[in-house]
């Protein structure tokens, strides 16, 4: 297996960040970053669609962190890193856009994901599923409803949901995604007095 975790494993993100900012200790930032590097890599890979470019992006983002972190007050490192990563990738795409055309099947994805700060009600584990949510689920289209029910209530994994409903795993994911979006809209509508 991978021997990836460092020696500072016990230390919390916040502590590491604080140490880096106060003492300028790059090892601390390195440790912190290594906890999230696979995520940064994954996201870069998704946007840049090239392993080498994504790997370079991971290293460039680290350099950027060194510069940027001390200048910002970062509350939540993970979501901050997420935004930084996406911005970096989008900038990268923009800068290569003129010379680097993707010709086939690789379209630049510019859809902005839901804000990282607001967790979807259905993903909040502590909340009991409210009546409002239930009512909204009932109003979803059948595939979306089925996917959400199987995934969230029957606790099946994507693959099982896909088998159950005889559809592609990708489809399952997009139904979930869309279902959740609709749920949110529905819930917000109800909250409006």
């Amino acid at each position, binding site marked *: *297996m*991978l021997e*990836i*975790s460092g020696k500072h494993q016990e230390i*919390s*993100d916040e502590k590491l960040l604080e140490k880096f900012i106060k003492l300028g200790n*790059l*090892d601390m930032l*390195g440790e912190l*970053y*290594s*906890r*999230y*590097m*696979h*995520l*940064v*890599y*994954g*996201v*870069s*890979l*998704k*946007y840049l669609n090239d*392993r080498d470019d994504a*790997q370079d992006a*991971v*290293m460039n983002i*680290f350099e950027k962190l060194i510069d940027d972190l001390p200048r910002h007050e970062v509350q*939540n490192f*993970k*979501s901050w*890193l*997420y935004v930084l*990563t996406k911005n970096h990738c989008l900038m990268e795409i923009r800068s290569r856009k*003129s*010379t*680097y*055309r*993707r*010709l*086939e*099947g*690789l379209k630049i994805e510019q859809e902005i*994901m*839901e804000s*990282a*700060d607001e*967790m*979807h009600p259905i*993903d*909040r584990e*502590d909340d009991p599923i409210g009546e409002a949510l239930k009512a909204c689920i009932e109003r979803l289209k059948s595939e979306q409803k089925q996917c959400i029910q199987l*995934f969230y209530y029957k*606790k*099946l*994994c*994507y*693959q099982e949901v896909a088998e159950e409903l005889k559809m592609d795993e990708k489809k399952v994911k997009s139904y979930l995604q869309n279902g*959740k979006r609709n749920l949110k809209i529905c819930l917000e509508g109800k909250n409006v007095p």
Partner: protein
Amino acid sequence: MSHKKEHRSANEYLQYLKRELSNRERHAFEKGLEADPFEQEAMEGLEPLDSEQAEQDMLYLHNRLRRRLSRRRRVAFYSVAATMASLLIVGTVFLKIHDFNPGSDEKQVYPEESFDTSTPQEAQPVPPAQKETDISEPISPTPERTVPMPQAAPMKEGEPAKDAPKGRSKGDPEIKVVDLKDEEPDETEAYDFVMAEEPMAEEPITHMEAEPMARAGEYKAAPTTQKSGKRKKSLAQPVAQSPQEISNVVANDREVEQMLTGKVTGIVISAEDQEPIPGAIVENRALNSGVFTDWDGQFDIPVQEDTPTTLVASFIGMETQEYQVSDGAHVELIMLPDATTLDEVVVVGYLAQEEKKGMDYSVPEPAIGYKNYKQYVEQNIEFPQENEDLKRAIVVLKFKVTRTGEIKEVVALKSPGEAFTREAARLLMEGPSWNPASTDKGTKDESVRMRIVFKK
């Protein structure tokens, strides 16, 4: 908002990708992803990789990060040496400017000194200023070298045993002493000093011995030449000449006897990964001797006693490097990878392949052969109207030739504009078919880069 601290580690991702988790665990993992767009997107990026690749990439990234972190330590450590080196270069440039412009004050001095040049200018401190001189002015290295050495000055002896070498070379190391001692040497000062030909060398003699030695020890023999190969050569020659001169001209018995009694031990380390390098060559060109490092990168090499020596370390794929060391020291010679060995893609004709693997491996090729393919391209290429002032343009396409010979995933790595990219892609897609890469196990998918030149 409640972002739970826990996040799914790289290991968990890999387990998921490798399908090592039970359905229950998969669900839990997926639920985590659903709750966190960062992780969800990361998974979208990672999923298309096969799990082996993903694992490899993550290891690679961690190594890269580690290297990045250790580089900083080295950088801090070298910065002193680097600062000095750059100051010396600046100093030399000053020297040179004055050398050329005010006519040759120095050159006048040269002849009267020339009888003295026979005095060996031994292996010992190769004054950096002098070194730079050689480089920056390849036209007449020899006279140049003698110029800054106020050898006419009377010898002063620090300790009788080494008086000869010291007295002789004191002129040049002096420059070095000045530069070394001051972190901010005043170049003009150094320059004036030389111009004046006033070897204020008297008392510094003793420290000029001490300085380079201390330096070698303290800075782990930081290479005095950081990059250029040319530089090394011009330096190596004078150094190499000196021993003969010592024996022939001054043949001081004591000295000859002492020549080989000194010893330097050390280890050769790769700057890239901090690992010792076995089988590297360490030479003492002054004594015309050399040794190989052992399995642990260790070596010991005889040097002339009590005088700083230049060691030259070399190894395949590494930049040949020189180090100033002194007798008795234990040194770490750190070698940098040689940039020239890390060449990019090789261009074969106008088509470039990324690599060849093994004996029974053939890369994808146009079915009609490169020559005919080139002809096809030349006959069918249309220079896009779009850009009037361009006379010549290059498009580099990268694409995959699948095992069945289909062309896929066409991407332009380089292109002056969309019209060119389109035209290049049209040529490729409409053109003659390609044979897939083949190995002894059959055909396989392989990426190819193709360079297409547009000419008006």
